[in-house]
């Protein structure tokens, strides 16, 4: 059964190729069904392969398909590496991808580029599976770049709006910074081990010099924070919400962004061999990112932006788990997060669809009656993310917090605070969207409230901030970044007598499946009894030797669980008190600092617009004078020498003949002199 593994990435690839060749002819909805069926088939094969892997007791299995790069000592194969970790990953990636493909058939209905969307989606699934299943770092990197490219293409899928195209570019450029780290790590691994295969390097990692291991681990960490949107490279993920909502659910919540966590988990022996500060760095990066993102999520008004910052936060929790060495909890949260965050995004998509493409939560409200299926499924995702038992998010997050409590109390406090804010912001979203009074009729009135000349004012502020001699492009960039981070409301006019409506079955079926998964996902690994630690047992061989052991007593764990539950419930109640009952002026709890994401984007814009531009210009000048000067100088010298020599080329045949004659005489004289001497 394991031999079928090659089919898992091959099926989406076939779908991609067929759609590229015949996508337009297939049209809607056949192109979507083809893509969906291919990914669903891949899921079925994954189940079969997983069963085979389980029957073998999780022994790693390598399938080499062919040699990719045979270059002397440097040989890279196209091969698949199946172990418990990649087994879990392929299951949830293909499963959720199939559901989101199905959802997309409904969501992308009527889009002129319907088939193109599925081309990209299938290519994405293929790349993601290559990333997961690749048996060497280079193949993983290939998938890594593949998902990055698909992410770029899908974020700017509606590229006729400049903001979407910009968001795509931002994601791409930010990811490049991380990819640099990944590439350097690959070079270093090859330099050290002479091989890139996981099967060769992972068992050997324990014998690494600490400096080497530290270097590799830090470089891979840089790659991981780029892909998984951790500070300081977190800026691209909120903007990535410019893409269609299924893309946000699939790529920017469930699968691609978890690639960084997957990579760090994969190379756990290298992290274990590195200096002590590396895991601390990972854990603190994750914890601080989680807290910062949670604060920001409380003040966002765009329904998808809340979920985007929430994703950044949850990825922060996963990094925290990796940092404290409880790798399997990171994978656990990754899986259940994929369930409930994909669900929340798909619900958000359903709401946006029902609300006539409006995304601002301030114009929603009371939707629970009008969109019952979306509402009920959303509740599963909401309570899961908030961490209310028995929903899966509770177990996922609390395993991490329990381990953190054992390892580092300060990190635990940060994590608990973030968990509390999670319950608050997702409660806020739930109450603003589904409860309370219907607010979408107010929007015409709200439009009138926006003062005329607001745009000019924003521009004046930007000019003030940058100084008078700022160029127009810089001002525009700053205005755009402020607007992107800030408070701007984009209304899509709705027809008279508009009522939000429930979505079609294509969209509701995935919601229901994901809601059920969110509800029962905790069964993968219940804290009690010990025999219910399925995921931990299953993943144990992968993390052997580098994983942290849980030594807390049962009583402590129970107390931890109770504390977490209380925090989640209190957070939800606080949200209800503020945003449902409206006892407190909510605006005061949503300061501009958080609404603008700590002004991090604006700070980057300002930096790049000011000193950054100066530095770039200095580099350009250096390039033009020194580098180009050297090149042009050589060229100019040759040209001048040629011009000087051209003078001898008079065109008089007789002169050439004379030159030949004189030359011959000189040669003869030389030879004769040699002979005589």
């Amino acid at each position, binding site marked *: 059964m394991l031999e079928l593994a090659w089919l898992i990435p091959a099926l989406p690839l076939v779908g991609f190729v067929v759609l590229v060749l015949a996508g337009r002819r297939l049209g809607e909805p056949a192109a979507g069904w083809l893509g969906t069926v291919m990914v669903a088939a891949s899921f079925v094969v994954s189940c079969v392969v997983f069963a085979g892997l389980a029957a073998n007791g999780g022994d790693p299995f390598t399938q080499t398909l062919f040699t990719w790069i045979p270059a002397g000592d440097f040989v890279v194969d196209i091969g698949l590496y199946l172990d418990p970790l990649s087994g879990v990953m392929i299951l949830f990636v293909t499963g959720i991808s199939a559901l989101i493909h199905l959802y997309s058939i409904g969501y992308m209905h009527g889009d002129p580029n319907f088939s193109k969307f599925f081309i990209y989606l299938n290519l994405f699934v293929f790349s993601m599976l290559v990333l997961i299943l690749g048996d060497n770092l280079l193949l993983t990197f290939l998938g890594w770049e593949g998902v990055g490219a698909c992410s770029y293409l899908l974020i700017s899928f509606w590229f006729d709006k400049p903001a979407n195209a910009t968001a795509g570019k931002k994601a791409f450029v930010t990811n490049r910074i991380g990819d640099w780290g990944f590439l350097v790590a690959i070079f270093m691994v090859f330099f050290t081990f002479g091989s890139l295969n996981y099967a060769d390097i992972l068992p050997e990692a324990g014998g690494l010099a600490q400096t080497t291991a530290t270097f590799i681990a830090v470089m891979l960490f840089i790659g991981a924070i780029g892909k998984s949107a951790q500070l300081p490279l977190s800026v691209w993920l909120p903007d990535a919400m410019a893409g269609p909502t299924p893309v946000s659910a699939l790529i920017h919540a469930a699968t691609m962004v978890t690639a960084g966590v997957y990579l760090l988990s994969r190379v756990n022996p290298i992290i274990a061999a590195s200096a002590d500060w590396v895991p601390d760095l990972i854990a603190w990066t994750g914890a601080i990112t989680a807290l910062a993102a949670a604060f920001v999520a409380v003040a966002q008004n765009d329904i998808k932006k809340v979920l985007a910052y929430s994703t950044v936060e949850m990825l922060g929790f996963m990094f925290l788990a990796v940092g404290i060495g409880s790798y399997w909890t990171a994978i656990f949260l990754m899986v259940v997060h994929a369930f409930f965050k994909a669900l929340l995004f798909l619900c958000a998509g359903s709401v946006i669809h029902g609300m006539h493409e409006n995304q601002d939560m301030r114009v929603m409200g009371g939707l629970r009656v009008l969109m019952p299926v979306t509402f009920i499924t959303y509740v599963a995702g909401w309570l899961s993310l908030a961490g209310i038992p028995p929903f899966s998010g509770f177990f996922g997050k609390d395993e991490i917090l329990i381990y953190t409590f054992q390892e580092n109390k300060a990190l635990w406090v940060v994590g608990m605070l973030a968990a509390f804010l999670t319950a608050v912001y997702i409660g806020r979203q739930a109450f603003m969207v589904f409860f309370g009074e219907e607010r979408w009729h107010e929007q015409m009135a709200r439009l009138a409230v926006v003062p005329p000349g607001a745009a000019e004012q924003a521009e004046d502020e930007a000019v003030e901030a940058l100084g008078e001699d700022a160029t127009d492009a810089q001002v525009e960039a700053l205005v755009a970044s402020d607007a992107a981070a800030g408070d701007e409301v984009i209304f899509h006019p709705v027809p008279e007598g508009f009522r939000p409506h429930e979505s079609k079955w294509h969209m509701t079926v995935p919601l229901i499946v994901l809601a059920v998964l969110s509800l029962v996902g905790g069964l993968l690994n219940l804290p009690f009894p010990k025999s219910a630690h399925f995921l931990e047992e299953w993943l144990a061989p992968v993390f052997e030797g580098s994983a942290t052991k849980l030594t807390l007593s049962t009583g402590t764990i129970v107390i931890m669980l109770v504390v977490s539950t209380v925090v989640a419930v209190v957070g939800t109640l606080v949200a209800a008190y503020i945003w449902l009952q409206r006892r407190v002026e909510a605006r005061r709890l949503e300061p501009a600092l958080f609404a603008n994401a700590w002004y991090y984007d604006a700070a980057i814009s300002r930096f790049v617009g000011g000193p950054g531009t100066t530095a770039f210009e200095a580099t350009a000048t250096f390039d033009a004078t020194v580098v180009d000067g050297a090149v042009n100088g050589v060229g100019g010298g040759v040209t001048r020498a040629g011009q000087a020599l051209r003078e001898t*080329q*008079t*065109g*008089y*045949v*007789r002169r050439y*003949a*004379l030159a030949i*004659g004189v030359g011959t005489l000189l040669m003869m004289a030389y030879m004769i002199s040699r002979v005589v001497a």
Partner: protein
Amino acid sequence: MDGVDAGYLVLSAILFSIGAFGLLVRRNPLIMLMCVELMLNAVNLTFVAFGMMLGDLAGQVIVLFVLVVAAAEVVVGLGIIVAMSRRRPGATADDIRVLRG
């Protein structure tokens, strides 16, 4: 080596010098071509003379090669001269200077 054999070499040296001198001083392309031929044949004479003196057939073989090359050269050279005179009757070798790059 007797006087007669040295005479061949002297004669070929004289012929070569006449050809070279003519090539350098005349401007009529046809005359110049004839001078080149004269030089070639002077060299041929040298080859044959040395072949005889040293009893080596190679000298005569090379002459055959030179004749073939000279024939080819004359074809090209006369072709150029004819084309030139058609385009610009009475042109001298110096006038070809305008073709210079």
